[in-house]
Structures are given as structure tokens and as C-alpha cells.
């Protein structure tokens, strides 16, 4: 049943291939290969000439110009690849330079995007040849064979001609088969082209990394500011208000005690002292929670101990497994701790899970933290502020967070951090 359907789908795909847009776009792309590769080749020759001529200085502006032109060529190739080959490549950052001729020369000569386009021009030559050859072979050969009944009697083709009508029809059928296979073949022959466009015509990895780090830094700064604000608010609304209330109670006690000879004042003073006593204990407890939120004392004894404390405090039962032959950097320990705390809090708050597990391992310079639960799933980094905060904190140290949480669960969240910064 399944195989039958698979076959039907395959046949359907083969037959409808010629009427699909992709087939024709890729055919046009492949047929343009000689043109684009040719332009690239001419450009490469210019680059080489410029390099050769740098000895008498004329070559330097020429080289700068060629590198700059490579950018244009890259843009054209990227556009073609997008429109015809279906490869979406992010445009690299625009050419940036200071004022003045020298600045412009320097910027062009050191333009990573331009040089990457030059390399693309060189490396794509064989890829273009292969793609064109396959395309020409499949489409050209297919068409030629298909038309066999038209030419087989011509004396010019005597050496390839079949020996009679049945043979000619057979060749024609083979041509048809070749034509049906052509879209598939061309698509695969274009694979190297697509890969090259993706790797060499996009933003240069260094710049992309800088952008990523800038984003991580912005998030980290925001995160730090938000956390300070939260601490300030907790102190203001919590501890400070509690202490003021305490002072107020004691102030009233003081006044009442001045009239201690009156039993009702003494009685009220006693009640106020009770309330003040309770208030002081509450303030101490809240302050302790707040302090633990800043830096958990358990972390001083190592990540295992701190995580064990966390696991023990979790309302959902947590199975903890740690394998840390090497102690991570303090900042990494702190980030792992707060990630675990946040994730376990999420488990307790949102997942409805009956069980959770925390796995922490160190190896190959990486710390891997996996928090699993058997709850309802549906967690994502772009929904909750909590997970976004975690992404910010892990991103700060080049770490990653991966959330797998299909609706219906289970949820598996993997955080990877470098062991040392």
C-alpha cells in the first residue's frame, strides 16, 4: 500500500516536472552558466593582471576596482541564484568607506565581501561546467533522441541510425525518458552552485559573528539593567516597606509604654511587639530569598551542590545527574545555575509535569545542561520573557539554548555553554 503510493507519487512527480516553474527556472539558470562563468573568468583575468601590475603601482587602483566590481558580480550572481535557483542568500553588509581616495582604495582592497566574490568566481568555474554539461546532455540528448524518427534516415547520421522503424521508436522512447529525468538531473547538478552561492556570496562569517555578539551584548546589558531594577523594586517594595512598618510599630510601642500604667495601653503595646516581631522575621526571610537570588551561597561549594539544592527545592520531583570532571568558570557556573533555576521554575509553573530531570555534563570544553519534563510542552524562546532572558544570558558567553517542546510535550531544553570564557 505504502510502496504503491510512493510509486504513484514518484511517477506523478516525474510527469508533472516539465510543467513546474522550478524546472524551467533551473534550466534557464543552467543555460546562463557559460555566460556568468565567462564574465567571472574575464574578471578573474583582470584581477590577476592587476596583481601582476601592482609592481608599477597602476595595478593597485586596478585591483581595488576589480575587488569592488567583484561585489557587483556577487550581487548579480546572488540575484540570479535567488530568482532562478531558489537559493535565498542574505545580502552582505553594504560597502563602507571613509572619505577620500586613499580610504576608498584601502576599504576596497580589504573588502572581505569583494574577495569572497572573487573566490566564488574562481571556484564556481568547475561547478558551472558540470552543471552546464549535465543540462546540455540531458535536455539536448533527450530532445535529439526524441526526434529520432525525423532524422534517422538522413545519410548524415548514418553511423548512429537504428536499423529500422522499431529501433527509431525505441530511441524516441529513450529520449522521452531522458527528458523526464532531466529536471531531476539538472536540479542535482546545480547543488554545488547552490552551496557555493550560500557559502561565498552571503555576509562574511566574521561580520555575522560581530553582529551576533553585538546583539548578545545588547541583550546582556538590557538583562542586567532589568535585573538591577527588579532587585531595587524587591528591596523597595519588600524589605524597605517591612522595615518602615517595623519602625512604625515600635514607634507606637514606645508611646504606649510611656503610659504603661494604663493597662489597655500596655496590652496594645504587647500586641504591637508581637506584630513587630513577626514583621522582623518576615523581613529577614524575604531578604534571605533576595540575597539568594543575587548569588546562591550553595554555588560556592560547586555547581553539583547548588543544583542539588535547587532540585530539592523544586515542587516537581527532579532527578539530577551530574558529570563534571572539571570545574567550570565561576560565571559559567552561575549562568548554569540560573538557567536551571528558571527552567525548573517554568516546569513548576507552566508544564503541569509530574517529573523532571536535570542532566549536566562537561566535556570537550563544553558544559551541556539538559532539562526535561513530561508536561504539556509548547514552550518557545520567542514567547516567554523567561526563556528569552536565558537566551540572552547564554548568548553573552557564546552559549546556545535549544528548545524542543511540541504541543503535548515532552519538553527538552538543552543549554550549551563553554566551560571557560
Amino acid at each position, binding site marked *: 500500500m505504502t510502496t504503491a503510493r510512493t510509486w504513484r507519487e514518484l511517477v506523478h512527480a516525474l510527469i508533472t516536472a516539465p510543467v513546474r516553474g522550478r524546472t524551467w527556472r533551473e534550466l534557464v539558470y543552467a543555460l546562463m552558466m557559460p555566460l556568468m562563468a565567462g564574465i567571472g573568468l574575464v574578471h578573474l583575468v583582470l584581477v590577476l593582471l592587476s596583481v601582476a601590475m601592482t609592481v608599477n603601482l597602476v595595478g593597485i587602483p586596478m585591483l581595488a576596482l576589480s575587488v569592488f566590481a567583484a561585489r557587483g558580480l556577487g550581487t548579480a550572481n546572488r540575484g540570479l541564484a535567488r530568482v532562478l535557483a531558489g537559493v535565498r542568500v542574505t545580502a552582505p553588509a553594504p560597502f563602507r568607506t571613509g572619505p577620500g581616495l586613499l580610504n576608498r582604495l584601502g576599504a576596497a582592497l580589504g573588502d572581505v565581501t569583494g574577495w569572497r566574490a572573487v573566490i566564488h568566481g574562481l571556484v564556481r568555474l568547475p561547478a558551472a561546467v558540470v552543471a552546464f554539461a549535465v543540462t546540455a546532455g540531458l535536455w539536448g540528448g533527450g530532445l535529439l533522441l526524441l526526434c529520432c524518427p525525423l532524422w534517422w534516415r538522413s545519410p548524415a547520421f548514418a553511423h548512429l541510425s537504428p536499423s529500422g522503424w522499431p529501433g527509431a521508436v525505441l530511441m524516441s522512447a529513450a529520449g522521452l525518458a531522458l527528458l523526464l529525468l532531466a529536471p531531476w538531473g539538472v536540479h542535482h547538478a546545480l547543488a554545488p552552485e547552490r552551496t557555493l552561492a550560500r557559502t561565498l556570496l552571503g555576509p562574511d562569517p566574521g561580520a555575522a559573528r560581530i553582529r551576533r555578539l553585538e546583539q548578545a551584548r545588547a541583550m546582556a546589558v538590557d538583562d542586567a539593567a532589568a535585573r538591577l531594577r527588579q532587585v531595587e523594586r524587591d528591596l*523597595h517594595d519588600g524589605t*524597605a*516597606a517591612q522595615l*518602615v*512598618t517595623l519602625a*512604625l510599630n515600635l514607634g507606637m510601642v514606645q*508611646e504606649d509604654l510611656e503610659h504603661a500604667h494604663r493597662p489597655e495601653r500596655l496590652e*496594645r503595646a504587647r500586641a504591637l511587639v508581637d506584630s513587630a516581631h513577626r514583621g522582623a522575621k518576615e523581613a529577614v526571610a524575604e531578604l534571605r530569598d533576595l540575597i539568594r537570588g543575587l548569588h546562591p551561597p550553595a554555588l560556592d561549594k560547586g555547581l553539583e551542590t547548588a543544583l542539588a539544592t535547587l532540585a530539592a527545592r523544586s515542587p516537581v520531583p527532579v532527578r539530577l545527574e551530574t558529570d563534571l570532571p572539571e570545574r567550570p568558570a565561576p560565571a559559567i557556573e552561575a549562568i548554569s545555575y540560573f538557567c536551571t533555576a528558571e527552567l525548573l521554575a517554568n516546569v513548576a509553573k507552566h508544564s503541569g509535569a509530574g517529573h523532571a530531570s536535570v542532566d549536566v555534563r562537561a566535556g570537550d570544553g563544553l558544559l551541556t545542561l539538559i532539562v526535561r519534563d513530561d508536561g504539556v510542552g509548547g514552550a518557545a524562546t520567542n514567547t516567554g520573557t523567561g526563556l528569552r532572558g536565558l537566551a540572552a544570558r547564554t548568548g553573552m558567553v557564546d552559549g546556545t539554548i535549544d528548545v524542543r517542546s511540541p504541543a503535548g510535550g515532552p519538553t527538552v531544553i538543552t543549554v550549551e555553554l563553554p566551560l571557560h570564557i
Partner: protein
Amino acid sequence: MRIVIAEDAVMLRDGLHMLLTSRGRQVVAAVGDGDALRAAVAEHHPDIAVVDVRMPPSHTDEGLRAAIEIRRDHPGVGVLVFSQYVETRYAAQLLADGAHGVGYLLKERVADVRDFLTALDRIAAGETVLDPEVVTQIMGASRRIETLGTLTPREREVLAMMAEGRSNNAIANALFLSYGSVEKNVTQIFTKLGLSPSENDHRRVLAVLRYLQA
């Protein structure tokens, strides 16, 4: 005396409520945010509103803004702004439209029950009460201002106490001066700040404002 309390920390609100009630004041409403405060003042027309600066939803200066509006819309209602820290800008905003029946105190002043109640009475009677801490900060900041720089240390002290809303008599007692010598200092302050005698009624208030606006 009829009082409205606006304070978002429930514990402290209840504490204030108990304190004032037990000392024979009538608390007509105790609320937790700016809008409720405006509504309560409009409804009850109290003698005084005790207002926490930071309240929901903004948790910034919600209470202060409400206090300023109350002073504008209900001139007969005294306002005591009650804050965990001193912000001279807040004091200046609060006093921008005059200093009649207004006060700005740190929350911890509530611990000295008698002083706190006296402050409430004075504000309800139309006087000005500024926290000593507010005055200290203003003095610190105003040292840079030229006219204020011409005051002698003694005159500064006297002005600071004026800003706290004390009478000449109280200042004389606190600074161990004769009443006459306090009067002389006050006149000297008015002269140096350029406050002419015709404004006599408000000169104390104006002298304080001069500080705040500097």
C-alpha cells in the same frame, strides 16, 4: 481630622491606618494607587492626603503626579508626600505652585509617632513641612547658586529650619539662639534673597522655594 491614605504596600498601609485611628484621627479611605487616590479625594474631601510617591501601575512617580493634581484641583486638601528616598526634583515639583499645606517626608519619619502627627497637623493647618533630609540635599545642591552662596553658615541653618516649616520660636530653641537673633537672621536671609518686605506674608515660603527652584 479626616485623612486619605494612598500606599501600595498593604502592611504599611494597615500600619498607618492603625496608627492614625488609634491616635484619634479619622481615616476615611485607604487606597493603593493613584487613580483610587484621586477618586477618594474627590469623594471625601479630606483634610489631608498621605501619598506614597511610588505606586502601581507605573511604579515610578504615580503618587507624586496624583499629589500635584490634588493640589491643583482641591486647594483645600493638605498633601503629605511620603517617600522612601529623597528626590529634590520631586520636592520642587510639589512646591512649584506654592507651599500652602504641603509636606514631603521620608517614610521612616513615621517611627517618631509624635513628630509625624505634628507634621500632619501642621500640613492640615496650611503649613509646609519638608524632611530634614530634603533640606540637607537642597542646601548641598544650592551651594553652587550664587545668591545662596552669600548666606552665612548660621543663616543657612536658619533657612534649613524654615524650610522644615519651623517657627522663629522653634528655631531659636533648637539652635540655642535668642528670639531676636533668629529674627535678625531671617531678615538678613530675606534681604540677601531679594524678597521685599511687602511680600511679608509669604516670605518664609518664598525663601524656601528659592532654594527648591535654584
